[in-house]
C-alpha cells in the first residue's frame, strides 16, 4: 500500500479542532457514527452480517465445514479468521494476498472473539482427533472510511449471532450456534492530546496513535492492540479502557440486542 498523504492543511485543521476537543464531522469525542447491522444478508453463508459504520461498510460471512482438529486440541473445533481489503473499498487497497494491514486486522478481531470464548469450540467437535467443525469468519471490506477494527468486530459478532450450524449434513438437525460471550472492540485515536472514539478515515490519517480495546459484556478486557508510531501515557490507557467499556455497553445492545 502506498504511503497515504493528507494535505498539511487538512492535518492542521483537524489538529486545531482536536485541541479544542472538537471533531471535523462535529461528533462528540465518544460518539460513534451511525451503526447499521443487517444480519443474514448472505444466504449462501451459515451466518452473515452487513455493517455500515458511517460510510465504512463491511460484510462478514460465517461458513462452516468439516476438518481435522489441531493435534494439541483434538476435541476442539477450529476458528479461522481472514480479512480481505479488496481494491473495491479504497483506491489505496491493492489486489493480492493479504498485507500486514489485513493480517493485523484479522488477528486483532480474531483475538477478541477467541479470547472471550465467544464460541465454545469443544461443542464444535464431532469426533475427537478426527473430525471437527471448521468455523470460517471472512471479513470482506466493501467501503473504507476508517475504523475497520470496530466495524469488523461488530460484523463478526453479528454474523455469529445468526449462524445456523448445518448439522443436517451429519444426519442431525440444524441448530443455531450458541454465543457464550459478546466481545466488542472499541477503537480510540489520539490526535494531539485529544482522544476520540471511532475514528473516521480522515482522523486515522492524521492520528498519532491508535488503541483498540475489546471488552466483554461484564466490562472485562479481552484483547488490546496499540497501533501507529505515536505513544500513550499510562493514564491515557486507563482512560481509554474506561471509555471503551462504556461505549461497548451501548453498542452491544445495538448488535446482539
Amino acid at each position: 500500500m502506498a504511503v497515504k498523504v493528507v494535505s498539511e492543511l487538512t492535518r492542521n485543521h483537524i489538529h486545531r479542532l482536536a485541541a479544542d476537543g472538537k471533531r471535523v464531522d462535529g461528533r462528540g469525542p465518544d460518539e460513534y457514527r451511525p451503526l447499521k447491522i443487517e444480519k443474514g444478508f448472505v444466504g449462501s453463508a451459515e451466518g452473515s452480517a452487513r455493517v455500515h459504520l458511517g460510510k465504512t461498510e463491511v460484510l462478514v460471512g460465517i461458513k462452516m465445514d468439516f476438518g481435522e482438529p489441531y493435534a494439541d486440541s483434538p476435541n476442539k473445533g477450529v476458528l479461522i479468521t481472514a480479512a480481505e481489503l479488496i481494491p473495491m473499498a479504497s483506491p489505496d487497497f491493492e489486489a493480492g494476498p493479504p498485507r500486514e494491514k489485513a493480517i493485523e486486522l484479522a488477528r486483532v478481531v480474531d483475538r477478541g472473539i477467541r479470547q472471550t470464548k465467544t464460541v465454545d469450540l469443544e461443542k464444535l467437535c464431532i469426533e475427537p482427533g478426527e473430525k471437527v467443525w471448521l468455523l470460517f469468519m471472512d471479513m470482506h471490506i466493501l467501503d473504507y472510511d476508517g475504523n475497520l477494527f470496530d466495524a469488523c468486530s461488530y460484523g463478526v459478532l453479528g454474523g455469529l449471532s445468526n449462524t445456523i450450524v448445518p448439522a443436517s449434513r451429519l444426519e442431525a438437525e440444524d441448530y443455531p450456534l450458541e454465543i457464550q460471550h459478546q466481545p466488542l472492540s472499541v477503537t480510540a485515536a489520539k490526535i494531539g492530546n485529544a482522544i476520540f472514539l471511532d475514528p473516521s478515515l480522515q482522523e486515522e490519517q492524521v492520528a498519532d496513535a491508535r488503541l483498540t480495546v475489546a471488552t466483554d459484556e461484564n466490562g472485562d478486557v479481552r484483547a488490546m492492540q496499540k497501533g501507529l508510531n505515536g505513544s500513550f501515557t499510562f493514564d491515557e490507557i486507563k482512560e481509554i479502557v474506561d471509555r471503551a467499556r462504556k461505549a461497548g455497553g451501548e453498542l452491544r445492545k445495538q448488535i446482539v440486542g
Partner: protein
Amino acid sequence: MEPEVRLLDENKRRLDGRAVDELRPIKIEAGVLNRADGSAYLEWGGNKVLAAVYGPREAHPRHRQDPARALVQCRYNMAAFSVSDRKRPGPDRRSVEISKVVSEALGHVVFKEQFPRTSVDVFIEVLQAEAGTRCAGLTAAAVAMADAGIPMRDLVVSCAAGKADGTLLLDLGKEEDNLGEADLPVAIVPRTGEIVLLQMDGHLTPEELETSLKSAIDACHKIYEIQKDALRRRYAVTTEHGGAPPPPKEPETEADTPPTTEEPKPEEVEAPEPVVPETQEGE
C-alpha cells in the same frame, strides 16, 4: 448428465415456476458506495453482486501503460462465503478467465483514446452466487462505469441462454446450470446489437445455438431498461445515501438516456421492445 431431477414440469414450468423464456427477477441500484468513483449493486435471482469503478487513473505498474489509450481492467472476485462450499480467497483460474472476457467486453464501449496511459479499474464482487454471476457482474459493472461518469458509447448488458432437460431455457438457475446440457453467456451493446462477450460450453446444434443466442440478446434489451432505470433513479434522488451524489463527469443531456451517451448515434435503431422467442437460457 441425464438429470434424474426433472427440471421442467409437464406444463414446461421450471423448478422456480418460471416459464422457459422468463428471466429471474433483477434489481439494480446505482451509486451505493462512497469511496469508489462509481458503483452499482445488483440482485439477479439469488445472485448478489457489487461493482465498483475507479478511474480513469494512472495505470500501474507503469510498464503496463498504453501510451495511446486507457486500459479497461476488470477484476471479478467471489467472496469466500458466496458459495455453498467456502471458496478459498484469491483468484482461481475461472476468475482469471472471467476477468479477462469481461474486461474485453467493457473495453469495447469506453472512449479509451481520450485517456492515454490511464486505467479504468472495474471491481466485481460476487457476494452471493447462484448461476449466472458473470452476466450479473458485467451488467452491474456497466452501470457502475456510467455512475463513475466514464465516457462510453453505450452500456453493456449481459444475459445467458442455455439448455437443460432437453429444452432451451433463458437465464439458467442453479440446478439448470449444474445439470443442464449447455450454457451460452452473451453480452451486447444494446444500441447497436454488437456482441462483445460470447462463451459457450455444452452441446447445441447450430440451430439451437442461433435460437439461444437470439433469446439471450432479446433478454439483454430488457435488462438494459433496468440498467437505465437504475441510473435515472440515481440522478433523480439527491440525498438518499447521505449527501448529494457527485455529478457525472459528462453532463446528462436527455432524461431517458444514461449519462454515458457521450457520442450519440442517432442513426442506430433504438433498442426495440424485446420479444423473447420460445426459447430458454442460463449460465
